[in-house]
């Protein structure tokens, strides 16, 4: 078994009113930012799957994303690999790096 890291990015489908995105747009003037529009707020889920191969791991993530992490009526999702097989090592590396910075 190998560990595969994925991120699932869930976003509201086109045409669905996103009031949180609107609120961000409405506040841009307070930051002195101009020229930004179409703010859409979704969520990102990162996870690690133990599987024999990447195709199997991805199929598991597809099912989870389609059935629970997103609602197909209102949301779209995109899956991206992150960290891949060395996720455990890279995690440790990040911890060490963080400790080093402290």
């Amino acid at each position: 078994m190998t560990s595969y890291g994925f991120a699932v990015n869930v976003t509201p489908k086109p045409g669905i009113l996103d009031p949180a995105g609107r609120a961000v747009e409405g506040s841009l003037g307070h930051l002195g930012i101009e020229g930004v529009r179409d703010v859409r707020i979704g969520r990102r889920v990162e996870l690690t799957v133990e599987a024999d191969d990447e195709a199997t791991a991805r199929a598991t993530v597809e099912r989870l994303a389609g059935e629970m992490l997103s609602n197909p009526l209102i949301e779209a999702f995109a899956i991206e690999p992150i960290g891949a097989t060395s996720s455990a090592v890279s995690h440790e590396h990040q911890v060490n790096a963080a400790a080093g910075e402290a």
Partner: protein
Amino acid sequence: MGVRVGVVVFPGSNCDRDTMHALSLAGAEPVALWHEAAALDGVAAVVLPGGFAYGDYVRAGVIARFSPVMRAVAAFAADGGLVLGICNGFQVLAEAGLVPGALLRNASLRFAGQGVAIAAERLDTAFTHAVDSRRPLHMPVAHGEGRYYADDATLDSLEREGRILFRYVDPAGDPAEPGDRANPNGSLRAIAGVLNAAGNVAGLMPHPERASETILGSDDGMGIVRSLVESAARAATGSRPVEVGAR
């Protein structure tokens, strides 16, 4: 003893006791059904109460949808059993696909805790036959994600098929479209409650159980609760087998 009506208790449900009280007032024997239960204990109808099942994480209702009791509720509904979802219960039913549409974050981004007026679009359903008239019913809403959404084709078919059960109405009694103050969350076509195609599963965002006695400010919710209890009593004495367990 009255007809047995189940009230599902998820971790995070908080209207289960009030719902059981309202069912008792209507003459039913309420039965608490724990979320891990795989069978429905022979009840003649099921209510999914308000609250924040499983913390409403990810999306309101979605984690509850996959609980063991919901497998039994889905089988019960498929068999013609009466199921009513109130507030969070409506969100669970929508996530489970047992009623059409989705409940999105309120357009205001605010939690809506206020009184609303709703009108029953139909008085001939299992959930509304004891509602005394088309006059507006006053009861509270209490939710952050209650904005009813479905695509236009679905909304059109719901209207055509008479499956919009309740609408938010303004003081004149007209449907309160999104943007109207009488529409608490921006629900499309002022939809406060819907019916499934078979007519045995309904969901609504307002809380009839919180309007069950005049001392609470309104007992308008009891028309809905009594409708359910009377329909359940008929189902219990009818030919349809009542016992629906895990499949």
